[in-house]
C-alpha cells in the first residue's frame, strides 16, 4: 500500500528518519557486526588486541559437551513451555469466547500475567516450588527428597518451564481472545442452526480461522523462550544444578561476563542468532502453508 499524496522535499523526509537510523546503527548494527568480528578472532579480555582465528571459536564451542548440553536444554525448554503456554491459552480463550455468565471477569483476570516481570514471577515461583517451604514441601514431607530443584536437574527444568509457561499463557490469551472475537458471530450461529455441535463448530470454523494467530504466537513463543527466559533462569536456578538449566542465553551471559571469554560468547551469540533465524524460516516455510488466511 502506498500513499498517493506525499511531500516532495525529500531532505526533510530523510531528516525525520535520522534519529532512528543513528540509534539502530550505534546500538544494533554496530554491535551485531562486532559480534561477527569477535566470533572470528580471539579477543583479549582486558584489551591488548585480538588475533584472527577464523572458525576456531566455533570449532571449540561445538566440540564442548557443555555447549551441546545447553542446546538440548534450550530445545527441551522451548518445546515444552511453548506447547503448554499455547495449549492452555487456546483452551481458555476458546471457552471464554462462549459467552456465558462470568466470561468477562475471566477475560480481565487472565490478562494480568502479561504485566508481571519474569524475574518477579520467578521469585514467586521459586518460593511456591521450594522444597523446604512453600507448597511442594508437603509432598516432600510425605516422600522425603522427591522434589528438589536445587539438586535434581529434571525438577529444576520443570520449575523454569512452569514459570515461563505461566507468563506466556497470559500473553497468548490476549491474542487468542482477539482472534476469536474477530470471527463473525453470524458464521457460528448459521452453523449452529444447520445442526453442527459445539465441537464440530470449533474444528470446522473457529480453528481454521485462528490458524494465523496460532502461527504468529508459535514464532513469538519459541523466539522468546530463547531470550526472555534469562531472568527466570537467573533467579530460579542460575543454570544449575550441574548445568541442567544452563540455557543458551544464560550460557552466553555467564561465559561472556563471568568467564570473560568474549570470543566464545560472541560465537555462541552468532549460533543463537542463526538458530532463531533458521527456526523462524522453518516455521514460515512448513507451518505457514497450513495456515488459512481469511
Amino acid at each position, binding site marked *: 500500500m502506498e500513499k498517493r499524496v506525499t511531500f516532495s522535499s525529500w531532505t*526533510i523526509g530523510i531528516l525525520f528518519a535520522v*534519529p532512528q537510523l543513528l540509534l539502530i546503527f550505534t546500538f544494533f548494527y554496530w554491535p551485531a557486526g562486532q*559480534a561477527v568480528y569477535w566470533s572470528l578472532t580471539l579477543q583479549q579480555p582486558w584489551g591488548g588486541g585480538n588475533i584472527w582465528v577464523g572458525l576456531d571459536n566455533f570449532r571449540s564451542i561445538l566440540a564442548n559437551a557443555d555447549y551441546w548440553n545447553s542446546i538440548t536444554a534450550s530445545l527441551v525448554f522451548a518445546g515444552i513451555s511453548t506447547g503448554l503456554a499455547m495449549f492452555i491459552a487456546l483452551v481458555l480463550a476458546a471457552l471464554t469466547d462462549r459467552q456465558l455468565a462470568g466470561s468477562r471477569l475471566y477475560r480481565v483476570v487472565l490478562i*494480568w500475567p502479561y504485566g508481571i516481570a519474569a524475574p518477579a514471577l520467578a521469585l514467586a515461583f521459586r518460593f511456591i516450588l521450594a522444597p523446604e*517451604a512453600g507448597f511442594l514441601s508437603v509432598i516432600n514431607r510425605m516422600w522425603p527428597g522427591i522434589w528438589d530443584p*536445587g539438586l535434581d536437574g529434571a525438577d529444576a527444568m520443570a520449575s523454569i518451564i512452569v514459570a515461563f509457561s505461566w507468563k506466556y499463557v497470559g500473553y497468548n490469551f*490476549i491474542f487468542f481472545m482477539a482472534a476469536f472475537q474477530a470471527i463473525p458471530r453470524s458464521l457460528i450461529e448459521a452453523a449452529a442452526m444447520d445442526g453442527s455441535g459445539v465441537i464440530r463448530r470449533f474444528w470446522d470454523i473457529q480453528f481454521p480461522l485462528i490458524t494465523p494467530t496460532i502461527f504468529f504466537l508459535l514464532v513469538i513463543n519459541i523466539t522468546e523462550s530463547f531470550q526472555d527466559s534469562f531472568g527466570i533462569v537467573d533467579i530460579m536456578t542460575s543454570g544449575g544444578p550441574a548445568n541442567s538449566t544452563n540455557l543458551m542465553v544464560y550460557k552466553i551471559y555467564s561465559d561472556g561476563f563471568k568467564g570473560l571469554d568474549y570470543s566464545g560468547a560472541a560465537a555462541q551469540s552468532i549460533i543463537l542468532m542463526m538458530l532463531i533465524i533458521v527456526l523462524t524460516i522453518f516455521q514460515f516455510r512448513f507451518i505457514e502453508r497450513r495456515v488459512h488466511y481469511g
Partner: protein
Amino acid sequence: MVERTPFLNFFTHLILFVGFVFCIAPFVVVVIAASHNLRDVNDVPMSLLPGSDFWVNIKTAWVTADLGPKLLNSFIVAGGVAAGKVIISALTAFSIVYFRFPGRMFIFWLIFVTLMLPLEVRIVPTYAVVANVLSPYQTILDVTGLSWLIEKVSGVQVSLSLGLLNSYPGLILPLVATATGTFLYRQFFLTVPDELTEASRMDGAGPLRFFIDVLLPLSRNNMAALGTIMFLWAWNQYLWPLLITTDQSHAMAVTELKQLIPNVGGTPEWHIAMAGTLIVMLPPLLVVVLMQRWIVRGLIATEK
C-alpha cells in the same frame, strides 16, 4: 449462544474456574506469604489465612532492598523508553510513509531487520558500545584514515570517548533502538485518508505542520497503546540493567529482586522476599489493569 448445552456449560465453567485459579494463585500466594512472619511462612504446609505482619514485611523489604530509589529509577527508565519509542517511531514512520526519496525502501528494511535480533543475543558487543558510545565513530574515522588526516592538518589527536555505563542514557538508548513501534505507526498512517494531506497542503501547511497539527493528534490511540506496552516491556527488562548498572544509584527495581532470594543455609526470609516481589510487581500490574483496553488494541495492531 443458540442452543442449550447445560453439560457443556458446566464443563466450560469448570475449566475456566481452574484456569482462573491457576492464573491468580501466584498473586494470592505472594500476598499471603508477604503477610506471615518468619515462622509461619516456613510452616509445612503454609497457612493460607493471611498473617498480621503485612505492613511490617513491606517496610522491611522496602528498606532492605532500598526499593524507593530503585522504583524511581525504574519509572525513569521505563518512562524514557516509552517516550523515546513513541517519538522516534512516529518520526520514522512519517518519513517512510509520506516521502518519496532514494533509499526509502532500504531504510525500511534496515529498520525491519532489527525486529529479528533482540538485545539478548547481541549483549556482549552492545555492552562494549555502551562503555564507549563513540567507539563506532572513532573506528570509522581510524579505518577511513580521517583521524590521521585531521591530526596531520590540525595537530589534534582524535579520540572520541563517552561512557554510558551506570547512566540513564545507557539504560534507555539501547532499549529504544528497536523498530517495534515503527510498524504500528506505519500501518496507522497508511489508513489516514489522502484527502487530509491534500487539504492541509492546499492550506499551505508544510510537512512539519501537517505532522504536528494533523497526524499526531489523529494517532493519540496508537501512542497510548505503544507507550503502555513499551513502559511494561522496559519496566520488566532484567538482563540489560543487570549488566550495565554496577553502581547501586542506577539499579532498577526488577534487578534488586535477586538480593531478596534467601541464601541456602541462611534464615529463609521468604516473607520479606514475597513482600519485595509484591512491591516490584505492583506498578506494571496496575498499568495493565488501568490500560487493559489499550493494550489489547495495541497488541492486535502490532500483529498485523
